[in-house]
């Protein structure tokens, strides 16, 4: 039964594709074998039909090629004006993407899918514009010819001899919801051509003889038919998967192609793609980076290959390793690859000997159950370009300087040998030269070492081996010595150089892991978002020697101002690019296909389910990043995104915790306040309702009660207001130079009504310095302390206020001789709403808490003590740093 159950993965994929399409626009491709078959015409007809059905149709971009019947069909359709793009002094007309997005029709017609946009337009390729239209939920009709599909360009070149430059990824066909093949027999097309329906008369002749030959057209037609047939096949399979019809399920094959920086690799990629498509198998493209530094051209070539691979739907894997064979097989086993595609080596057997044996042989020997396909290179490629991928291996390691240095060393050693020739024999000479070659291999490189080995062998033969000054060798022993010398020099040079390479590779790998490790460690250690971003900017800047900017999102929108530590300035233009990246979750900017005129490159920071921000980066050398740098950068960006997400989650958790805490406080507050509020209100209402009826003496008593209850209410409200002001975090200290003595005086004055019956002792140390504090807030503190001392002690208890100077601080002490606070409670009295058990009613449990917050806001400290004489003592220490500027005496006015 299992055999008839659809594979859940493919089922899910089919359903997801369905779902994704619900809100995406639908793409219909009008597809033909060559120009002139009537794609645009058919598309326009279809558009008119849709319009008749009441669909809102507009023409986004359409090329009539001045064909009369096509132009006639254009009437009655709304055409969005094209935008003019200035490029090197001339104006080019391009489709106005933003205008269409703004117009937001149901369906838009966009001719020539494979078109390449003028520089300065948002996307490099028109199909990217179309993707954006689809994303916006707009249906798109478009046209394309078969020769523009990536995977067919090879074949087209082979058949017609024409290289197609405007290509589109084959995956576009998979994206299309509908494909209409416009088929026409080659004869009919040629007839249309000769009737002048395709090109203007002057071009007809050349076209008919070149591209539009019957042979070409037949081949292109077959290609178009086959492409359509393949697709129909796939649609059928998708359909069967969804409808649970048993059939040919996805194969368990998995393909992998190994590529290098050779132009031939593109062919390998295309071949693999075709194969994978037919096998319905996933496929990956692997590039193994060795330590050799690639030239800028090969870097660019590689980048192109990898892009092609991605566009064709392949997964790209880039990894580093000294042993290509081992690394390839490692990746293959890791990914369960069943078929491995490699190119036929174009190196001579000598070079293969140098690099430690043929890769193909090694692969085949070690691949086990993995099938290995060996694909030949293009004739044209292998003839015209063998040097580009053989010679650089020798040359690019070392500059000409290195070769010059190696030759100089050999010449010097030879001269020295010539000078000491009378003293030592030619065999010892040979050894010294060999030693020199070894040193060159270790310190300079393989190429120079091989050159040095050759030169020294020849010079040794010429100058030192009998007969001297000839290349002849007289004895068999010397011949043997000479060839052995040659072999040892080359072998050891090669081996040492390889050792050195491995060492460099190891160091490079170590550097890379180190950079990543540092980033991980530093961001892990960062305590908050700000620290994370600072670290990220710093690390990225250091590792890539680049200017960096990070923009985070705020309420579903990209925040305009980048993190202040960023080194990359973000003006409005650059921000527009960043915003595009944020909205589309795709990289853009310099060295990309989208908005490539930007100064920097922008990457989305993709967290698990959303974009959390955008990173902008611009290297100081301002060059395209190498593949390994790109991979490292991707890893960095992923890591940063993860950490940012972690911080966001932390912040949310913290907020949730704060909410819980504030809810707890709220409950405590309600419990505490409701009692404190209701008691005086009850007293006021009761007294007021009795006022009218009572006799004069009780009336006086009642009005007194109303007053005192109202004052109690007032005090509570003031405390609550103070507390909320403190809690809101909006408290701003208004620091000015204050006289502590004066401050205490004011506080005592304010509590005069309740203090006047008390025994109050005030000791202000003479010569107290002025302290820079907020007078009003600190007075509030002293008032709260005095109020407590009054409220919680019996009327006969004495109150003492002291102020004295400590070391770099001023100490204020408010003491009473009341019942005191139990030692266990001393620390808790500063907590919000905490009241010492058994105290008399009337307080809120806020006074000391407010005092503590205020003192700490001043950088001071507050504590409760029990003096030896009993009672309670609250001690405030305030930092007294600096002195005010000198005062100015007034000359008598």
């Amino acid at each position, binding site marked *: 039964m299992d055999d008839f159950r659809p594979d859940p993965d493919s089922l899910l994929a089919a359903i997801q594709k369905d779902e994704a399409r619900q809100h995406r626009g639908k793409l219909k491709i009008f597809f033909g074998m060559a120009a002139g078959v009537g794609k645009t015409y058919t598309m326009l007809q279809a558009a008119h039909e849709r319009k008749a059905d009441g669909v809102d149709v507009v023409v986004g971009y359409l090329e009539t090629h001045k064909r009369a019947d096509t132009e006639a069909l254009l009437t009655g359709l709304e055409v969005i004006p094209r935008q003019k793009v200035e490029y090197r002094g001339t104006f080019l007309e391009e489709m106005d993407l933003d205008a269409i997005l703004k117009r937001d029709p149901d369906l838009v017609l966009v001719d020539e899918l494979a078109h390449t946009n003028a520089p300065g337009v948002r996307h490099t390729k028109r199909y990217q514009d179309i993707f954006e239209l689809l994303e916006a939920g707009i249906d798109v009709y478009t046209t394309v010819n078969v020769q523009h599909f990536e995977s067919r360009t090879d074949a087209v070149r082979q058949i017609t001899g024409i290289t197609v430059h405007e290509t589109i990824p084959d995956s576009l066909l998979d994206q299309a919801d509908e494909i209409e093949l416009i088929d026409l027999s080659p004869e009919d097309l040629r007839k249309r051509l000769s009737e002048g329906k395709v090109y203007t008369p002057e071009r007809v002749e050349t076209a008919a003889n070149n591209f539009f030959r019957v042979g070409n057209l037949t081949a292109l037609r077959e290609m178009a038919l086959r492409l359509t047939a393949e697709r129909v096949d796939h649609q059928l399979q998708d359909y069967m998967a969804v409808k649970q019809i048993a059939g040919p399920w996805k194969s368990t094959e998995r393909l992998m192609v190994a590529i290098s920086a050779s132009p031939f690799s593109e062919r390998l990629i295309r071949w693999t793609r075709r194969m994978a498509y037919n096998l319905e198998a996933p496929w990956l493209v692997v590039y193994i980076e060795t330590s050799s530094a690639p030239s800028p051209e090969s870097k660019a070539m590689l980048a192109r290959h990898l892009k092609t691979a991605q566009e064709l739907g392949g997964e790209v894997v880039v990894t580093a390793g000294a042993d290509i064979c081992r690394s390839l097989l490692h990746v293959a086993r890791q990914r369960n690859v069943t078929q491995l595609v490699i190119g036929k080596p174009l190196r001579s057997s000598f070079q293969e000997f140098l690099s430690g044996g043929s890769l193909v042989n090694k692969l085949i020997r070690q691949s086990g159950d993995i099938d290995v396909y060996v694909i030949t290179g293009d004739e044209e490629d292998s003839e015209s370009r063998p040097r580009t991928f053989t010679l650089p291996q020798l040359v690019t390691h070392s500059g000409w300087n290195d070769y010059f240095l190696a030759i100089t060393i050999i010449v010097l050693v030879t001269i020295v040998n010539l000078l000491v020739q009378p003293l030592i024999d030619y065999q010892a000479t040979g050894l010294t030269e060999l030693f020199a070659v070894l040193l060159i291999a270790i310190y300079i490189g393989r190429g120079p070492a091989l050159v040095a080995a050759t030169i020294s062998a020849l010079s040794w033969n010429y100058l030192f081996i009998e007969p001297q000054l000839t290349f002849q060798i007289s004895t068999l022993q010397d011949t043997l010595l000479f060839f052995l010398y040659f072999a040892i020099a080359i072998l050891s040079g090669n081996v040492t150089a390889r050792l050195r390479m491995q060492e460099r590779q190891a160091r490079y790998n170590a550097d890379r892991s180190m950079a990543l490790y540092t980033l991980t460690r530093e961001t892990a250690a960062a305590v908050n978002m700000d620290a994370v971003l600072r670290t990220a900017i710093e690390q990225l800047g250091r590792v890539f020697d680049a200017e960096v900017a990070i923009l985070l999102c705020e309420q579903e929108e990209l925040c305009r101002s980048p993190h202040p530590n960023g080194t990359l300035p973000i003006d409005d233009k650059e921000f527009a690019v960043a915003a595009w990246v944020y909205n589309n979750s795709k990289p853009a900017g310099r060295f990309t296909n989208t908005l490539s005129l930007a100064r920097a490159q922008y990457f989305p920071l993709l967290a698990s389910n959303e974009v959390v921000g955008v990173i902008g980066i611009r290297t100081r050398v301002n060059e395209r990043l190498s593949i390994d740098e790109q991979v490292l950068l991707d890893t960095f960006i992923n890591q940063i995104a993860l950490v940012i997400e972690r911080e966001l989650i932390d912040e949310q958790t913290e907020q949730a915790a704060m909410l819980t805490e504030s809810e707890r406080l709220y409950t405590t507050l309600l419990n505490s306040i409701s009692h404190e509020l209701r008691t005086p209100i009850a007293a006021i209402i009761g007294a007021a309702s009795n006022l009218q009826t009572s006799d004069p003496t009780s009336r006086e008593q009642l009005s007194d009660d109303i007053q005192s209850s109202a004052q109690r209410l007032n005090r509570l409200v003031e405390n609550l207001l103070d507390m909320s002001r403190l809690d809101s975090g909006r408290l701003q200290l208004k620091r000015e*130079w204050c*006289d502590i003595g004066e401050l205490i005086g*004011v506080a005592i*004055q304010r509590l005069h009504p309740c203090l006047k019956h008390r025994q109050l002792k005030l000791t202000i140390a003479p010569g107290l310095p002025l302290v820079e504090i907020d*007078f009003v807030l600190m007075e509030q503190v002293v008032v709260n302390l005095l109020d407590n001392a009054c409220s919680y002690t019996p009327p006969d208890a004495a109150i003492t206020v002291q102020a004295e100077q400590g070391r770099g601080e001023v100490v204020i002490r408010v003491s009473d001789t009341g019942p005191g606070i139990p030692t266990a409670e001393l620390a808790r009295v500063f907590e919000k709403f905490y009241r010492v058990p058994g105290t008399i009613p009337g307080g809120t449990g806020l006074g000391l808490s407010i005092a503590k917050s205020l003192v700490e806001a001043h950088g001071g400290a507050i504590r409760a003590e029990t003096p030896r004489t009993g009672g309670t003592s609250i001690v405030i220490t305030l930092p007294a740093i600096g002195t005010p*500027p000198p*005062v100015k*005496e007034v*000359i008598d006015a």
Partner: protein
Amino acid sequence: MPEVLIVDDEIQIRRFLRIGLETNGYKVYESPNGHDAILKVAQRKPDLVILDMELPDLDGLEVLRRLREWTRLPVIILSVRASDVDKVAALDAGADDYLTKPFSMDELLARLRVAQRHAQPLAETQIFKSGPLQVDLSRRIVTVNDQTVKLTPTEYALLRLLIQHHGKVLTHKQILREVWGPEYVNETHYLRVYFAQLRQKIEDDPALPRLIVTEAGVGYRLIDEG
């Protein structure tokens, strides 16, 4: 009979003020908003205005500014805004006094008396008396408990300024501008130093001053004990 205009949008506040003031011999007008208040001041020409800061149409401060464009009549602010910033703003804008709600009727009556007195300017030749302090402004002689006290020019300048506005709060800015000059309005520590000195010389208990009272965060007031 002195006439008072009460400007407040709360009818309860107006009512209890009217009762309190009428029993103390004032003739009372009421006004529920700023525009009406400005109109009534122009029509009735009261001797005093009690002005709330929160009015439905205009901000109290704005009403004060408009009044100050053409009249010097005493204005006492009555507000729930208790912060020193609000007080200073009102006083600097020309208010004669500032009282925070809730307040006691006695306190309000005292402030009204002070404000009324200031409607008439103090003659330079007068002798000022408050508790133990006596100052002969024409001869510049200061005595405390009949003992002559020697003041420095700055101390005397401060004292004279307070006497000219006795009973009324002077903001830090106002004092600094009057005594030192406009460029010194932020040097509040001058005040701390000189008022401490002045209190040492004229107060019975400098730690608990009774003559020169500090209004926290706002300024100073010379208590008028008649």
